[in-house]
């Protein structure tokens, strides 16, 4: 698994946050985000408070702020949506720099950005301080159905293998002049995806057989 251990968002460390029980961290994240989502959008000081709490947790964890900020790019698609909000929302309008903006729309855009950013930042902090195996252990402690945890375990274990395979396939296609983005080359791309599916499926069958031969009975030993 050339990519090494851990996943792409994990930041190695030994802080108190890193060492905390994973199921506590998952519950804390869920509780925190639920409170953020349920907070009325015009309680502005509350949002400063949330950010401060998050800041303290990040400071204790020792994960560089820049590391997390760089990864905030996952929220770009809905930032665009939030920026559109003042233009498409209804209600009384206000003139800003010659543009007619909706007041409730501005408030909604602020709420979307604030709540979304806090949520993403909190999730990033969990991902940065918790190894995938620990996330799985945490979910198991939280009574997530055993089968779901097992499927997740297999998925995470083989994620790098399967994505690596796809990357090699697309690299090979590119070096032969194929542009995966162009609709003209979709047939070639689809054949590659079809091959990837067959390889993934057959790998699953081989893994299952290998596990059966080592005494697997359909349940993982605890």
């Amino acid at each position, binding site marked *: 698994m050339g990519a090494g251990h851990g*996943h792409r*968002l994990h930041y190695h460390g030994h802080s108190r946050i890193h060492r905390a029980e994973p199921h506590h961290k*998952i519950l804390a*994240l*869920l509780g925190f*985000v*639920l409170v*953020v*989502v*349920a907070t009325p959008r015009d309680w502005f000081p509350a949002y400063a408070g949330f950010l401060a709490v998050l800041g303290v947790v990040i400071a204790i964890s020792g994960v560089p702020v820049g590391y997390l900020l760089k*990864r905030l790019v*996952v929220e770009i698609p809905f930032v665009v949506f939030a920026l559109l*909000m003042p233009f*498409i929302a209804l*209600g009384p309008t206000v003139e800003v720099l010659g543009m007619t903006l909706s007041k*409730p*729309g501005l408030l*909604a*855009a602020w*709420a*979307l950005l*604030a*709540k*979304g950013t*806090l*949520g*993403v930042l*909190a999730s*990033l902090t969990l*991902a940065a301080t918790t190894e*995938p195996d620990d996330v799985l252990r945490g979910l198991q402690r939280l009574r997530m*159905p055993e*089968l*779901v945890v097992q*499927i*997740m375990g*297999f*998925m995470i274990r*083989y*994620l790098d293998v*399967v*994505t690596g*395979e*796809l990357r090699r396939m697309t690299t090979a296609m590119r070096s032969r002049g194929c542009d995966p*983005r162009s*609709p003209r080359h*979709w047939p070639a791309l689809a054949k590659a*995806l*079809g*091959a990837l*599916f*067959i390889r*993934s*499926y057959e790998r*699953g*069958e081989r*893994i*299952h057989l290998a596990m059966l031969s080592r005494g697997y*009975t359909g349940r*993982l030993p605890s």
Partner: protein
Amino acid sequence: MHVPDGFLDAPTSIATGVVATAAVAVALRGARRELDDRTAPMAGLVAAFVFAAQMINFPVGAGTSGHLLGGALAAVLVGPFTGALCLAVVLLVQGLLFADGGITALGTNITLFSLVAVGAGWLVFRGLQLLLPRRLSSVPVAAGLAGLVSVPVTAVAFVALFAAGGQAPVALEPVLTAMLGWHVLIGVGEALITALVVSSVVAARPDLVHGARPLLATRGLEIRTAGVAA
């Protein structure tokens, strides 16, 4: 397409969470029937495949790009229950390890993709199979049309959730029109990719395509001797 935290209010998030939990429970039972004791390794690998397939972006126009949802694709390839389960696990991993899609919006995302996209895709696929000629070559066609329908249906379900628990006073009609128009366009891309992927799997390993199994069961063994002797 992933719904982030704070997009819908807390009651809607909790309600969709309950719906998603029930959907996953049903999918777990169904997937055990579809895959028996192979469920964990097979579904895990298929989920990894869906995740990888979603990494490929295709241009939608206006400089933006969409990616495969894979709802109809997963339903046709591995069956509706396993497909729904795989998509739910993909969303769970994306939310917890990649911060893609909010934690409180996980129920919403699973409801939209595992329940609506996979469900609509599978229903359309099954319906078309009754109408189209019972031949292996109509499987990719039905799969593509299922992909085409699944995307705008998911978009409409999203607008409905937004109407119920949206956090902004927006006129729903233009949003619905815009979402529908946009997602029919994305659906065309989804349809083409889905049909092409399914046809390439049908060509190589038709037995791996869950949606083609009823057809294969009726097919007898055909022994071609003339070609070999020549």
